[in-house]
C-alpha cells in the first residue's frame, strides 16, 4: 500500500498544530508554529501552488517566527496552559 505524500503532510500539520497550542513553554510554541508553517509550505508545493509556497516560507515561517520570538523576549516565556 502506497500512502500519498499529501496525506502524510496533512497528518504532520495537524500534529504540529495541536502541539503548538498544548506545550507549556511559549518559546517552544513559537518554534513549533514555525515548523507548522514549513509543513504548510510543503503542502502548497505538492498541491501546485508554488507562489503561495514561496510566500508561506518567507513571510509565514520566517517573519512571523521572528515576530513571535521577539515578542516573547519582551514579555515572558512562562505560562500555565
Amino acid at each position, binding site marked *: 500500500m502506497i500512502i500519498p505524500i499529501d496525506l502524510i503532510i496533512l497528518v504532520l500539520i495537524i500534529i504540529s498544530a495541536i502541539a503548538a497550542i498544548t506545550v507549556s513553554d511559549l518559546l517552544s510554541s513559537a518554534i513549533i508554529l514555525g515548523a507548522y508553517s514549513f509543513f504548510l509550505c510543503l503542502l502548497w508545493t505538492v498541491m501546485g501552488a508554488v*507562489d503561495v509556497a514561496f510566500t508561506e516560507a518567507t513571510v509565514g515561517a520566517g517573519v512571523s517566527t521572528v*515576530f513571535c520570538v521577539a515578542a516573547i523576549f519582551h514579555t515572558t516565556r512562562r505560562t500555565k496552559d
Partner: protein
Amino acid sequence: MEQILSFIAAKANYWAYVILLMVGLYAMIVKNNLVKKIVGMVIFQTAVILFYVSIGYKTGGTIPIIIYGDGHNSIIEPAAKAVDYINPLPHVLMLTAIVVGVATLGVALALAIKVYQEYGTLEEDEINKKIRA
C-alpha cells in the same frame, strides 16, 4: 471499512481544514494565555487558506504556467486548455491573505507587549483580577 477509508482519503484536505479550524477556535476561546490565543488565530487563518487552495486543486493538473508558452519548442502547439492547469485565482487571493495575516499577527503581538508592560502578566484571569482591583 475500506469504503470509509477511501471516503475520508478522497476529501482529506477538507477534513484537515475542519480539524485545523476547530483547533484554532479552541485555542482562541479556551486558552488563558494571550500568546496562545494569538497562535490559535494564526492556525485559524492558515486553515482558511488551506480551504481556498483546496478549491482550486485539480487531480492530474499541472502548475499554472503554459506548457511551451515561450515558443522554444515551436513544433508543439502551446496547450492552453484550462482543464490541464490548476486554477490560479484562489492562489492569488490567498497570497494577499498570508501577508494580511502576518500584519495582523504583528499588531496582536504589539498589543500583547503593551498589556504585559501595563499589568506584568500575560494570563487573562490575572489581568481581569488586576482590572477589577
